[in-house]
Every structure is written in structure tokens, then in C-alpha cells.
């Protein structure tokens, strides 16, 4: 299973937000969105990853993009994770049915958790850029987020 490729339509999906509401493909329309799929809240690499991304958050927002973390953890665990590490990047939970959205995006690891992957979704709700780390233990640098946004800008 590999991450959705550039140009793919975003499939129907439903993820849980911290406030209990759902986040679906309809929330992507008209926006530039970065989805950061990560294996586990509180794992060392995921923590480093979100701390680094937090530092460039203002640059991401200044490019007109929103960014979300996506994992199979419950919203409660995700909230505890970001509060513990002073991260403000909103989180989306693929907890129940577990991994269904990850499967739809092509990033469900055989172990039942998300691969470490990045997807930039354009306002047309298609994949503008995607990246899947060679292994879940590999940290994708924040430079890749900007590579993704640059790629979208070149397509417009």
C-alpha cells in the first residue's frame, strides 16, 4: 500500500476532531491543506516531527495552508500529546473504524497504524503532492512541507 499519488481525487473519509465533530472531504474544498500522517502520539520521532513543524507553522499559514496531524490514536490521546509538547497543530483521529481513512489515503501500515506520510491537498480536493517515508521511523523534514506547497503553487 502506498500513499495516494499526485492528481488523485481525495476519497470520502471521516476523521474525528478534538471537539467531537467530524472532518471530511467537504472540509478540504476551497482550501490548501497539509495532512501529516504519523504512527503514534507520544512516540519519539512523532514528537520531534511535530515540534519542528510547530516552529514553521507561521510560515505555513502565511502560505495560506492549514495543517493537521492524523493518527489512529483517540482524540483524547492526541490532545494530551500536543498539550504535553506545546504543539498547536490540530489533530484528526482515525480511531473508529480504526484506520479506515488511512486505508483510503493509502497509508495504512500492515501493523494497523499510519505510515509516516505527508499529503498536500489542493483547493480542488485532489492530491497536489505526496510523500511517504521509507520507514515509519524516518522523520520527514519540514522542508518537505514547503516542497509540497511549492509544487501546488507551480500547478496553479
Amino acid at each position, binding site marked *: 500500500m502506498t500513499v495516494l499519488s499526485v492528481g488523485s481525487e481525495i476519497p470520502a473519509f471521516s476523521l474525528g476532531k478534538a471537539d467531537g465533530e467530524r472532518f471530511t472531504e467537504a472540509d478540504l474544498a476551497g482550501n490548501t491543506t497539509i495532512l501529516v500522517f504519523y504512527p503514534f502520539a507520544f512516540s519519539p520521532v512523532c514528537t520531534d516531527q511535530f515540534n519542528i513543524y510547530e516552529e514553521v507553522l507561521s510560515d505555513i499559514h502565511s502560505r495560506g495552508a492549514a495543517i493537521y496531524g492524523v493518527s489512529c490514536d483517540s482524540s483524547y490521546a492526541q490532545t494530551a500529546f500536543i498539550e504535553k509538547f506545546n504543539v498547536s497543530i490540530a489533530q484528526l483521529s482515525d480511531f473508529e473504524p480504526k484506520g479506515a481513512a488511512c486505508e483510503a489515503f493509502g497509508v495504512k501500515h500492515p501493523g494497523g497504524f499510519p505510515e509516516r506520510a505527508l499529503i498536500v491537498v489542493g483547493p480542488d480536493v485532489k492530491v497536489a503532492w505526496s510523500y511517504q517515508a521509507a520507514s515509519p521511523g524516518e522523520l520527514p*523534514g519540514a522542508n518537505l512541507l514547503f516542497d509540497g506547497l511549492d509544487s501546488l503553487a507551480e500547478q496553479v
Partner: protein
Amino acid sequence: MIYADFECPRCAFAWERIKDSQLRLGLRYFPVSSRHPRANAAAAAAEAAGRQDMFWEMVDLLFGDQGRLDDPHLWGRARDIGLDLEQFDRDRRSPEVESLIADSFRNAVRAGVMATPTILVDDSLHQGVPDLGDVALWESGRSR
């Protein structure tokens, strides 16, 4: 060139490994402030010390005691190395220094730095604390 966060324990360890080596050293700021709330202040202190030609002295003092990075501790270090304190405070709080540190972080991200410490040797990025063999190779002009 070491990309470092003054509150990162692994950076302090890396510094111990390289500081007395024969390598020609450079340092770029990579403060991960969401993890390390005093990392920016410490980077600003190093930069301000550098403006009084005491950059590496301050770097060594910052890495040498990461548990004490509040303002009185920074003033103490500045005093110990003979800095003009008023100038030190003006510089470390200046928008120019703030912007320089932010630019250092952005440029490091663009260069592919993903975590600290990262050491750039001859166009090759080494992530993590170098072992003694790495340092010896770098000193001999070879890269691993």
C-alpha cells in the same frame, strides 16, 4: 557547521565531542522553542555575546549548564566573560537578533535539517551526536 539548540541535551553532548577537535567550527541556531522554551533566549545570548567577540565562550557556557538558562543566569555568564551587560541586553532583545535567529532556523529547514544536533561536514549532513570515530575522520579530512 553544527545546527544546534542550546537546550537540547544531545547538542551539548555533540558540543563536548567537537569543541576541542581540530575542526574549523561554525554554528547555526535551530531553537525548537515548543520543546525548549529557553532555546531562543539562549541563542539570542550567544548572538549578543558574539557582537562583543565572545561568541564561542558564551556557546561553551550555555552548553555547559543547560539547567540554568533564565535571564539572571544569562547575565551571570555575560558578567563572567566580561561583557558590557547593557549592550548584551540591548543586543539579545533586538529585533535584528530575533530575525537573524528566525532566519537561521528557516534556512536550516530548507537545507534539510530535521532534528538537533545536525552537523554539516563537506556538504554532508550528519544527524545525531557524532562518535569519536566520526570526529577523527572529519579531522583527517575524510567523511564517513
